[in-house]
């Protein structure tokens, strides 16, 4: 493969564009409401109408407004022209499409009418999006590498391998200000530089696709919609740090993402975009898949590496950090899916372009998965620094049925609840941390007035309790006791002393746990206590035994708090 081949593929693909492109979402959300049936019906309808030479029915990745799926968008070029990528997304967007609707949708191409529910592509949900990571999502066919190449895919990899030194690549990423999208927000360029600095004949690049936060589905969508962007990002990273082998660690619960990745890796290898001597340079790089068995803790990098090595997925103390001693003791770069998907666009468009988006300390965009009590459930990508209000009210459409938003939970079990009063907070790493939450990987669960915050805290505590690996005592046994105390509070059997015990445990588990799972497990409790303390105290029983000196004297009425 040389650049001419790449250009030829792209041109051939573009030349094959037909007058009408009907895009049908084939990501897991829409697939679960039979978008596969819809696509088959559309194919059949096109055939029956004899329009095969004019119409392409394209299975694409996520079209973002998941709650209205299956989604189908029909874009048509002006008479005599072909559909260019830049006009895609202008045509009517059909929602909740069933296979029976196919014939009427095809009929609209010839001026017919259809009763299928139509969405408004001018809705702020779509127009306020700023796509970098999701730029190809819903546009390209994730199962055809040609489709990705036609959208400038693998161009960045070529430029990097043929025209840039690893040092220049590092500098570009550093200058772009990209920070890790997995949660902690560590500067990506620094992480790469640390791995690059080590002198080791063997280095690894790992893509962390073990997305496990309840309510988060950003990474899954990226992998299902645009797997090649992640592979390209990994290859560029590998060149920059000097790695020759990559692994994508993806959880077994994402079968579609796994199959699309497998297809993508196979195609990339066939085209010489992975393997040895890529673009006739001395750079060799291979990627293998590792399927996780669905343990949340395996999203923690040291546990993930242990799992890749075929061992029990438990974390180990850091240092040494993976950048120094990672997979099989070799320096290892671990980046999240979304982080890697940002890499090729940064190379293509330049560090300055990327650094011009977002806020001073948080550059670029962030993908969020909107879920919970919100009208528009789905995926959004917005520049860093967009306010929460804009995200959940303007774009998300607020709580459904005229409800009032009470809080937004970000960061999954490691994050916190942000009260409605703080909705004007810009969403960036530092602002969310100040509010006692975290950016996290991008899950955003909206809660309305019917949500009890103690319930929320207990839900996340139960999650952490079940997902604790059991290695360190504070996390293994502390989450159990915190869960017990929350249950006791919800059962109206707890006193102020139990609440104190809970707060003490939160502090202890946070300070003493081995890995991030335990260290952040108390966050949902701490943040709900911070903003909704009254919801806890309202549930408390009178402490019959405290007395004036706390010695238990001074009460004649005795009730059992236990039975």
């Amino acid at each position, binding site marked *: 493969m040389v650049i001419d081949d790449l250009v030829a593929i792209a041109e051939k693909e573009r030349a094959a564009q037909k007058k009408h492109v009907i895009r049908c979402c084939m990501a897991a959300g829409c697939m679960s409401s039979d978008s596969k049936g819809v696509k088959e019906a559309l194919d059949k309808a096109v055939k029956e109408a004899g329009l095969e030479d004019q119409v392409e029915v394209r299975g694409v990745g996520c079209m973002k407004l998941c709650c209205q799926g299956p989604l189908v968008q029909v874009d048509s070029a002006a008479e005599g022209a072909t559909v260019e990528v830049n006009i895609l997304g202008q045509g009517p967007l059909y929602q909740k499409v069933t296979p029976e609707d196919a014939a009427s949708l095809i009929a609209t191409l010839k001026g017919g009418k259809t009763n299928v529910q139509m969405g408004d592509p001018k809705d702020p949900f779509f127009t306020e999006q700023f796509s970098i990571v999701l730029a190809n999502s819903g546009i390209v066919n994730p199962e055809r590498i040609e489709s990705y190449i036609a959208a400038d895919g693998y161009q960045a990899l070529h430029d990097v391998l043929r025209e840039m030194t690893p040092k220049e690549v590092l500098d570009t990423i550093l200058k772009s200000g990209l920070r890790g999208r997995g949660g902690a927000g560590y500067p990506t360029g620094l992480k790469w530089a640390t791995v690059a600095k080590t002198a080791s004949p063997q280095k690894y690049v790992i893509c962390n696709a073990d997305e496990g936060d309840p309510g988060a589905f950003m990474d899954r969508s990226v992998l299902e919609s645009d797997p090649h962007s992640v592979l390209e990002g990994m290859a560029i990273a590998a060149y920059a740090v000097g790695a020759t082998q990559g692994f994508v660690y993806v959880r077994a619960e994402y079968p579609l993402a796994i199959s699309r990745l497998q297809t993508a890796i196979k195609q990339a290898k066939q085209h010489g975009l992975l393997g040895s001597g890529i673009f006739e340079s001395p750079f060799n790089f291979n990627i293998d898949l590792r399927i996780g068995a669905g343990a949340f803790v395996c999203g923690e990098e040291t546990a993930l590496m242990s799992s890749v090595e075929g061992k029990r997925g438990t974390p180990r103390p850091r240092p040494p950090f993976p950048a120094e001693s990672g997979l099989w003791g070799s320096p290892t770069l671990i980046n999240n899916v979304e982080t890697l998907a940002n890499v090729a666009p940064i190379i293509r468009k330049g560090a300055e372009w990327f650094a011009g988006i977002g806020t001073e300390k948080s550059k670029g965009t962030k993908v969020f998965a909107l879920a919970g009590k919100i009208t528009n459930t789905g995926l959004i990508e917005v520049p860093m620094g967009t306010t929460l209000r804009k995200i959940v009210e303007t774009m998300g459409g607020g709580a459904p049925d005229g409800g009032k938003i009470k809080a937004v939970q970000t960061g999954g079990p490691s994050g916190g609840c942000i009260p409605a009063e703080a909705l004007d907070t810009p969403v960036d790493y530092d602002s969310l941390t100040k509010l006692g939450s975290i950016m996290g990987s991008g899950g955003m669960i909206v809660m309305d007035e019917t949500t009890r915050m103690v319930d929320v805290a207990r839900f996340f505590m139960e999650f952490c309790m079940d997902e604790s690996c059991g290695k360190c005592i504070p996390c293994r046994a502390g989450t159990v006791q915190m869960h017990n105390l929350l249950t006791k509070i919800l059962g109206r059997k707890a006193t102020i002393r139990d609440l104190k015990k809970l707060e003490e445990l939160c502090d202890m588990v946070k300070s003493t746990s081995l890995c991030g799972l335990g260290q952040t497990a108390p966050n949902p409790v701490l943040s709900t206590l911070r903003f909704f303390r009254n919801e806890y105290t309202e549930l408390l029983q009178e402490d019959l*035994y405290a007395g004036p000196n706390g010695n*238990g*004297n001074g009460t004649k009425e005795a009730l059992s*708090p236990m*039975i």
Partner: protein
Amino acid sequence: METKDETQTQPAPGQPGLLRLATAWFGGCAGCHMSFLDMDEFLMDVAGKVDLVYSPIIDVKEYPEDVDVCLIEGAICNEDNLELIHKIRARTKVLVSFGDCAVTANVPAIRNQLGLGNAESVLQRAYIEGAQSNPCLPREPGIVPALLPRVMPVHEVVHVNYFLPGCPPPADRIKSFLVQVLEGKEPQLVGKDLKFG
């Protein structure tokens, strides 16, 4: 040791100036009380300094008011235990969990491991399977108190001021504890005085 609450107007009956001591026996083997008696001649010293107002070793049926210190042996196993411990807590200044059963629920709580229905299982074992004649469960009201679904250490039910673990706590440890209480000190268990089992 807590000082007496000035606001309490009701005069304590019995001999003035003496510490009003009680001991109580809940779900346990009485070994802690045996160990208490093992203090031998020190019991004479104690006798001169306390007024023993309630105990399995004296004949008082009703737990009195205004007790200064009560040593609790045993875990909270049945409804009688539960009722009495609340009464004791309400009428006592300083509660001491005395021995492992009171402190940890110990052996009586092993039945908790059987999960739901554990009380029924142990009754079945004791009164039906283990009966030599006339196997039947004691169900008559007022005869044998009903077992609680879960055996609890005392501090899980009421507030406890001090803990004296051991199975049983040896006499010298009880002695050192009582000496501190009688001297009006905050009793502390350190070094060899702190031991379970």
